[in-house]
């Protein structure tokens, strides 16, 4: 196997981050120039050293956010020039989904999370509930107090945190901890009454209205879900809708394009997406 393909393939197999930059428009003979960009090094060329330097720099930034974009540069990597178009595709590790509360609903949420390409981590303080039998599809099962665990867990802007315990003793501390992260989605399960009670407690703990607005509570889109599986679908749909900035609702009752040419990229379990 040739060099670039072999390293690209290896990075994907190890789930280590890599961005692939390809010249897709530019001067005669430059098309197809390719650089693999890793957090620490890079290999390949887009044509010349100056252009490579600019591409590598840009690709590292995109890779950090797991973003895929076409960038325009001058033939020697100049910014604010448009002669060369470079398609940069990020292959970042799968985003994480944290599921707190090892109840029946959690099992369905863990399954749908896996289906969507997330790395799913289930956490509950009760060892009898947080078992492999109950969560065969989860990537990790952690027996720990949710807030304690979340203190040391890896969370970034693509991470999803679902709090399904609907017990204030667990909910309130873990939600407070979640608000201190950059998680892209925070959802908390519970009836209207649980929600009101939880909101009051969070406020007592000093959580502001602005912070509260980050929490999807009660969790999920309003599709009339009843079973754990249906509820998991409602939660999954809300996660997607918030990421893409859509409101949910029926396409049949709308007009206009279905897929917007948005800047956001898929979760990419293999996009690593």
């Amino acid at each position, binding site marked *: 196997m040739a060099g670039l393909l072999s390293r690209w393939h290896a990075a994907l197999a190890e789930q280590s981050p890599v961005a692939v930059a390809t010249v897709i428009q530019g001067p005669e003979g430059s*098309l197809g120039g390719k650089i693999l960009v890793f957090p620490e090094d890079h290999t390949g060329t887009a044509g010349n050293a100056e252009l490579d330097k600019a591409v590598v720099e840009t690709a590292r930034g995109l890779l950090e956010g797991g973003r895929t974009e076409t960038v325009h540069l001058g033939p020697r990597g100049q910014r604010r020039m448009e002669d060369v178009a470079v398609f940069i595709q990020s292959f970042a590790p799968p985003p994480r989904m944290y599921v707190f509360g090892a109840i029946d609903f959690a099992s369905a949420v863990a399954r749908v999370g896996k289906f969507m390409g997330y790395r799913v981590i289930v956490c509950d303080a009760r060892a009898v509930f947080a078992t492999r039998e109950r969560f065969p599809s989860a990537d990790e099962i952690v027996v720990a107090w949710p807030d304690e665990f979340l203190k040391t867990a890896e969370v970034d802007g693509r991470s999803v945190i679902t709090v399904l315990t609907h017990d204030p003793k667990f909910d309130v501390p873990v939600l407070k901890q979640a608000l201190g992260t950059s998680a892209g989605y925070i959802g908390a399960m519970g009836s209207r009454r649980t929600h009101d009670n939880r909101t009051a407690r969070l406020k007592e703990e000093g959580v502001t209205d602005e912070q509260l607005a980050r929490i999807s509570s009660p969790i999920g889109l309003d599709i009339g879900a009843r079973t754990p599986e249906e509820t998991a679908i409602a939660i999954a749909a809300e996660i997607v809708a918030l990421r893409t900035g859509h409101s949910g609702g029926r396409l049949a009752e709308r007009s206009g394009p279905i897929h917007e040419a948005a800047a956001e990229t898929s979760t990419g379990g293999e996009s690593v997406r």
Partner: protein
Amino acid sequence: MNPVIDKVAQWSEEGKMAALATVVKVERSGPLGPGTSMAVSEDGQVVGSVSGGCVEPAVYEEAMTAIEGGEPRLLSYGISDDEAFGVGLTCGGTIHIFVERVDW
């Protein structure tokens, strides 16, 4: 794991040439986003897809041309492209696809 790159790597191990077609831009409405890819081997195997199925036959031909030594090409398919009109993109958008021989 990315099934397309996985397959391309396997073909490479087997000594087969291949071409990679990658969606690099989607205008208005398109079913699959940038980065979606499809690969074709010299013996005609296909993995992945670049649309809902409407432009794959045309991309397949372009991939074969690339394998036979053609230059990398940036292709556009959609309602604004007369040539592609026959191919037809059911969703009514325009997609731009980069096709290249795997020689790196």
